[in-house]
């Protein structure tokens, strides 16, 4: 059983939902990324999504784009991201790590090297934002060969037939984008999200995570009632952006804890 499957199975027994916080590798620095990762686990993160910095993150909002820009200014790209995960893995072998990134850095280093690095750093899943199933058959096949889950996004506009097609390629879990927009946008319509998540769950046994507009414990609690996992991204990055170095770790701890408690 994969680590991701194990986490969902264990939580189910306790009647709890998974919390998946997000951070961009190398933001605000390599050292602090590592500290933040460990703190998130301590504060209750069940899995962690790590963004691979990219110069042109088209599906992300301004907050996560700025995180990428800060990371790139620290010379953190795709290779350094893997090094950070490897460091994290030296003391943590249980928390699933999911990489989120865009196709170009992967193609630039080449698929073979990417797969090798995934193995070396013991990655659990990959979300490749701009690889829809039509353009990524071989990629997904190769990921499966090394037991890395290909996690796909589902949008509010994704029709039933297409959801079925995506489910065939997906593993680990499905990531439902809770609003029409980019990461970090405001105000999700809970009832609408609930309806959509139900529709998806009727088609698959894969767990469904919800992300893109969840910013506070209250929303997280509501979302957790009908989904299997909640992703918190821009809200955490905002804290990275606005906290002084001394306050950064405690501030992130308090956000993660408050949301974990709510779900």
């Amino acid at each position, binding site marked *: 059983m994969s680590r991701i499957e194990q986490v969902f199975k264990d939580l189910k027994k306790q009647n709890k939902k998974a919390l998946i916080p997000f951070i961009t590798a190398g933001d605000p620095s390599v050292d602090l990324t590592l500290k933040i990762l460990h703190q998130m686990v301590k504060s209750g993160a069940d899995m962690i999504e790590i963004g691979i910095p990219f*110069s042109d993150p088209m*599906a992300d909002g301004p907050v996560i784009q700025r995180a990428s820009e800060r990371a790139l200014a620290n010379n953190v*790209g795709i290779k350094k991201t893997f090094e950070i995960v490897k460091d994290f893995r030296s003391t943590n072998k249980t928390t699933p790590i999911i990489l989120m990134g865009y*196709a*170009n850095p992967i193609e630039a280093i080449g698929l073979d090297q990417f797969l090798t690095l995934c193995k070396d750093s013991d990655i659990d899943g990959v979300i490749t934002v701009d690889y829809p199933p039509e353009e990524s058959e071989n990629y997904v096949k190769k990921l499966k060969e090394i037991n890395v889950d290909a996690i796909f996004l589902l*949008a509010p506009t994704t029709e039933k037939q297409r959801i079925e097609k995506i489910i065939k390629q997906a593993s680990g879990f499905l990531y439902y984008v809770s609003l029409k927009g980019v990461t970090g946008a405001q105000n999700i319509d809970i009832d609408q999200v609930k309806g959509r998540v139900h529709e998806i769950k009727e088609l698959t046994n894969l767990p469904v995570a919800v992300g893109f507009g969840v910013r506070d414990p209250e929303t997280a609690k509501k979302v957790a009632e009908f989904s299997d996992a909640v992703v918190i991204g821009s809200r955490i990055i905002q804290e990275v952006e606005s906290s002084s170095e001394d306050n950064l770790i405690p501030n992130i701890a308090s956000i993660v804890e408050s949301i974990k408690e709510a779900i």
Partner: protein
Amino acid sequence: MQNYNFPDIDGHFGPYGGTFVAETLIEALDELKEMYAKYRDDKDFLAEFNHDLKHFVGRPSPIYFAERLTNKIGGAKIYFKREDLNHTGAHKVNNTVGQALLAKKMGKPRVIAETGAGQHGVATATIAARLGLECVVYMGAEDVKRQSPNVYRMKLLGATVIPVESGSKTLKDALNEALRDWVTNVSNTFYIIGTVAGPHPYPMMVRDFNSVVGKEAITQMDELVGSQPDAVVACVGGGSNAMGIFYPYISFKDTRLIGVEAAGDGIETGRHAAPLTANSPIGVLHGNRTYMMQNEEGQIIETHSVSAGLDYPGVGPEHSWLKDIGRAEYVAIKDDEALAAFHNLCRTEGIIPALETSHAIAYAEKLAKEMGPDKTILVNLSGRGDKDINTVAGIAGIKI
């Protein structure tokens, strides 16, 4: 090349093109593909499109023999396809008329666009005003400064211009921001992409709408000269004017097709915008796979060109394909060479060309010398240079 039939059904030109977007955009692209397939050969749609091209844009644009330039250079005869004489001053309007008409058919009351030099933004704002559509244009903050007359022009036409402060603050960042707007407002918004890039069906659709340039040229050259040119020369940023004139000429095997990229300070300096000439690695950006200026870890690098319209790290995927199969050749012209051609054309022919277009003219001058007087070169004079007078004056140290 009689059997040239690209893209395939999924938008691929060989290994290039495709649909590399987040799931959030797939539905919108599927809808667009479906509607474009429906209207692409629809008689009424095409009649409406052609009517607007004739009465609103002023087509056909003439072919002009640049006699004084030809004599001054001393070589092949140089002809211009005068896209600069179109309403709004460039070829860009052909495509915006087509896409805006499609938006109207699809019942979308709002159109958005990205713009570099501002020509595509102006052309979009213009047709939006004509059709009564709300219009929002994204423009890199750097370009807003470089192209202030066009910014004001868009505002006069009722468009909202949003300066983009992220990334390198140029065309690619404007495109990112427009994509974000589209994802957010997908139900009421049509995204009018200004070049032959982006996810399928944009590279094909923008090419089709612009191919009126090449179709007219074939007829006009026949009438005026009695033969087709030995070479067709056009500047390439994203590559829409070049694709528009190249595409109908692909099957004319005796006509060389030459795309002219921006060499900026020189290919060897790294400060350029010429992914094809420099043989940049293949990459994925803005929805398609193509030659792309990037570092070894796949980060898109900043480009440089005196002309905002060529300042783009990628290139339309069909150009990548035409390069690989050897049907088109790609060369690059430096900033100073383009500026020299700009000034030369102003004084020799009484035409102020766009700085983008000046790259094509500069190369045509070189080529004409090599080719000899019995040959002909057709340059796509893609746009006029009124928008560039501040830039040119600034380089000369003059404040106007």
